[in-house]
């Protein structure tokens, strides 16, 4: 008897101690789990990249293959196409977790939902925004983007797409409970993307004209800082609405 009581006591202690494992553990676990899940579904990671490449291919065909003309509009084209590619992948951000119920488990954890949502968004950025940013210079070559702006293009996309993931996740969280939220999601999120687009494409333009790039990048960073503070709270509130409704 005493032995089993002791075991029970131990178990209770473990159960009680677990939440104390703390935020870092929970966030790390969410990060690892999401990374693993996404890496096993490679097509979901690759699709936005392929979409990005195809859309960029459409522009020379639709407008003109003239390198001078393409070079003039390349910064905007690359940014808009990358933005749309990132947007496309947003719908699946919480979808699978919503369908199999693991999102509800996230809501039930003692850790703040905002931080766990932030971990999920971070994974989204790592596997969508960052690859898009790394791929953009290659497509830039195809659009005859003037030399000297490639690094700025990649850096501005990497910085900007993090804000895009954070803002977009609010929309994804609001629409995850709806069966056909895809188009609605773009309607909600695209107007909010405009500041990021302006300063992101502006940074590349500035690099081409030889102006100072730092001002644009600094504002992109400021937008990211703001989004990092406010977006997780909005995402958490939106997820609660979608789950309870």
């Amino acid at each position, binding site marked *: 008897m005493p032995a089993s009581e002791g075991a029970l006591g131990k178990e209770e202690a473990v159960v009680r101690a677990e939440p104390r494992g703390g935020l870092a553990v929970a966030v790390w676990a969410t990060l690892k789990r999401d990374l693993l899940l996404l890496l096993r579904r490679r097509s979901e990671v690759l699709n936005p990249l392929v979409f990005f490449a195809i859309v960029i291919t459409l522009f020379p065909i639709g407008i003109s293959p003239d390198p001078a003309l393409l070079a003039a509009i390349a910064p905007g084209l690359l940014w808009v196409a990358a933005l749309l590619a990132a947007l496309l992948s947003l719908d699946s951000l919480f979808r699978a977790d919503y369908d199999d119920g693991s999102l509800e488990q996230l809501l039930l954890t003692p850790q703040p939902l905002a931080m766990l949502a932030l971990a999920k968004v971070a994974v989204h950025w790592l596997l969508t925004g960052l690859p898009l940013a790394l791929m953009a210079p290659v497509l830039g070559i195809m659009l005859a983007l003037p030399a000297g702006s490639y690094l700025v293009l990649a850096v501005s996309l990497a910085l900007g797409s993090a804000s895009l993931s954070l803002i977009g996740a609010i929309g994804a969280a609001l629409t995850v409970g709806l069966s056909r939220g895809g188009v609605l999601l773009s309607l909600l999120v695209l107007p*909010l993307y405009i500041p990021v687009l302006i300063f992101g494409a502006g940074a590349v333009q500035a690099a081409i004209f030889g102006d100072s790039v730092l001002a644009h990048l600094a504002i992109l960073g400021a937008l990211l800082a703001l989004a990092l503070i406010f977006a997780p709270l909005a995402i958490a509130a939106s997820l609660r609405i979608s789950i*309870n409704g």
Partner: protein
Amino acid sequence: MWAFLNKLRSPKWFYTISARLQPWFWAAALILIVTGSVWGLAFAPADYQQGNSFRIIYVHVPAAFLAQSIFVSLAVTGLVFMVWKIKIADMAATVMAPLGAAMTFVALFSGAVWGVPTWGTWWMWDARLTSMLILLFLYLGVIALRGAFASRDSASRAASVLAMVGVINIPIIKYSVDWWYTLHQPATFTVTGRAAMPMEMWLPLLIMVLGFYCFFIALTLMRTRSEILRRESSKRWVRELAEEAN
């Protein structure tokens, strides 16, 4: 303050009090808009550069004012609804959103009509036009999101969150569009040229702005009242009201 908030919780109280307030706002709106229109359209002096076409501002400016204030009201009512769960706030937000979208459209359309004689084109990618267009998209997003949910409570809370997110973003969008405009296009002609406006032009404009606000309040009260009846249609006081009317 708390007593007032508690009273606000009751749709019935709001229904009674708004019945008393409503006629005053309608009367004020009617008097102000008629006075402002007649004064502005017939008696105010013509602009020495734009001639009579400047008179569009008597519709354009009040509509643009309302378009922006209504979005802020959406966010405020959204916050009130989320924090204190006051249903009236959400009902008001429901009826205000289409009005705000309409006002944004009126501002854009009257701006386009004014642009033809002044700029020679219906549309310019001017900073103000662009941010108003984005505001219209934000309104459409809020309305569409509210319509997409099957459950009314989720729809209300989702629309509230989106309105609040939108309000945080509006100044950011506004300043970034201004920045974008100054970067891309040198300001060949500015809309701000009319900042110094003579008194006899400015006064009717002020009257029109006040009239539009009164109209907005009156219309919101009226539509909120019908929204109350619609949502509370199963409550006893609403039924009694309907029986009395019959």
